[in-house]
């Protein structure tokens, strides 16, 4: 037999065969079409297609807002994870369930709700307008939508690590004379950093490609609040397949580079671990909620 395994359990060959076949048909083959199409363009044409001002602006807006939202989420997600793991308060179960809302709520629904809430006549938009801040139809609106989308990635990445953090570590630090903030800064935070970074990376990657929740609140003004995914849709509607492909490829390429950077940062943050590789299982679980 071709797939010889050592396990006495049956069904390995057919299960693996089906898995690989389905994966190839649904994911690998269609996705490779994108790469062939990009390769077909050639470097010069590719550069031509993405160096237009509208495209560069859209890419810049997408990446800048995704980065901003992921940073906001890193800060507040950490606080939320901390509060939910360490403290008790009434309604904790309810709030805990709600954290996963962005995973379950369709993005279009989130989009129209946020748009209504932050528009000039909406409850929050009205409030901000009074102090002179416009949110809807500006990049701030995009950041808000992406914050909504990315929050659970950070919280669900940090939570399991925090839960498994040995209390003895903190007690040891305290017994050695560290005050609370020293303990948190020197002992707790370095332990959480890898998980926080993977949560950040997940939120960021999701934010860059986000479409549904953004287009309603963004107003989609070219050069100002038009995100890259929207530009792809617009180009597709104009049957400009080459242009759409180029923007998509540029998006993937930049995401890829940034994620490698984040990965390197993450590796650095766990340099004290003997073996490299992804020891931290948190992002896996955080992903699917």
């Amino acid at each position, binding site marked *: 037999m071709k797939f010889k395994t050592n396990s006495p359990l049956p069904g390995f060959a057919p299960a693996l065969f089906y898995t690989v076949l389905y994966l190839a048909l649904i994911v690998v083959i*269609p996705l490779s079409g994108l790469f062939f199409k990009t390769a077909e363009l050639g470097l010069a044409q590719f550069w031509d297609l993405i160096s237009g001002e509208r495209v560069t602006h859209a890419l810049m807006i997408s990446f800048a807002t995704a980065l901003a939202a992921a940073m906001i989420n890193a800060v507040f997600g950490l606080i939320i994870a901390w509060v939910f793991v360490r403290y008790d308060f009434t309604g904790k179960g309810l709030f805990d369930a709600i954290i996963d809302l962005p995973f379950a709520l369709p993005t279009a629904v989130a989009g129209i709700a946020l748009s209504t809430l932050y528009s000039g006549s909406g409850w929050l938009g009205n409030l901000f307008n009074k102090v002179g801040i416009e949110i809807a139809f500006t990049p701030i609106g995009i950041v808000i939508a992406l914050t909504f989308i990315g929050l659970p990635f950070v919280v669900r990445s940090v939570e399991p690590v925090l839960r498994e953090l040995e209390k003895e570590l903190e007690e040891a630090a305290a017994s050695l004379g560290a005050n609370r903030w020293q303990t948190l800064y020197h002992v707790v935070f370095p332990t959480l950093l890898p998980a926080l970074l993977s949560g950040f990376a997940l939120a960021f990657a999701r934010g860059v490609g986000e479409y*549904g929740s953004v287009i309603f609140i963004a107003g989609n003004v070219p050069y100002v609040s038009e995100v890259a995914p929207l530009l792809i849709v617009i180009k597709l509607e104009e049957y400009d397949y080459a242009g759409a492909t180029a923007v998509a490829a540029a998006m993937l390429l930049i995401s890829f580079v940034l994620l490698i950077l984040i990965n390197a940062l993450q590796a650095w943050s766990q340099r004290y671990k003997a073996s490299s590789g992804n020891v931290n299982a948190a992002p896996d679980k955080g992903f699917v909620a």
Partner: protein
Amino acid sequence: MNPSTQKNSIKVAGHSAISEGKLTRWVLTTIALSFLILFLLLPLFTVFAEALRNGWQTYGKALSDADGLAAIRLTIIASAIAVPLNLIFGVAAAWSIAKFEFRGKVLLTTLIDLPFSVSPVVTGLIFVLMFGASGWAAPLLEDTDIQILFALPGIVLVSIFVTFPFIARELIPLMQEQGSDEEQAALSLGANGWQTFWHVTLPNIRWGLLYGVLLCNARAMGEFGAVSVVSGHIRGETNTLPLHVEILYNEYNFAAAFAMASILASLALVTLAIKAVLEKAHGLKH
């Protein structure tokens, strides 16, 4: 009272050596909950408030609109095809990855996760590139009447792609944690492969499986970007529920848009509620 004892008792009352002071805890909890209320609860509340702004009657009328019903039907059909397919895939993938050792396992797991990191719009794009008028797979369909783009098959395909990893991702860690001792025991007692799976494996993973299916379903029904690219937006025909919401919203028919949205929001709430119950009752970890 001796001052040193007093000092001690205060320290004990102020909680253990490794907790923050009462004020800090209160401040952090307030920040966390305010953030959740502002960013999650308020938008959710807005959906229902806007849907009911003009009263129940308008709400009912919006829901019974013919195009709306067609959108609901299409959404249900699409996910009724996509979810079972991903379920079979998820079980097969989890069985081979969690219960067996083989080379290329890490690569396989990475590829399964790939759809998570592909923007929904790009997902739509790759199927347009494949099946569009000048698409590279279009010649395959030339002689048939099969229409993929701007029709149900396209919607189903992107729904499968977008929710591809959900069930597998839920099951793999669960099955790995279970190990295969119980399966080996069943086989040693004479059970065949199906009996082992049905009587031993499945009962051990049923709650994780259920949650994976629910999440997969919620995402399939709610997918917007990818479906938007391949659907063609033909009202009453190729509009799914989220697309119909968009159209109504863009026509300034806010009450109807939010009424439709409230169906999807309810679906999300049910998914979350079941998840919370499963976690509490069966210690299912996320």
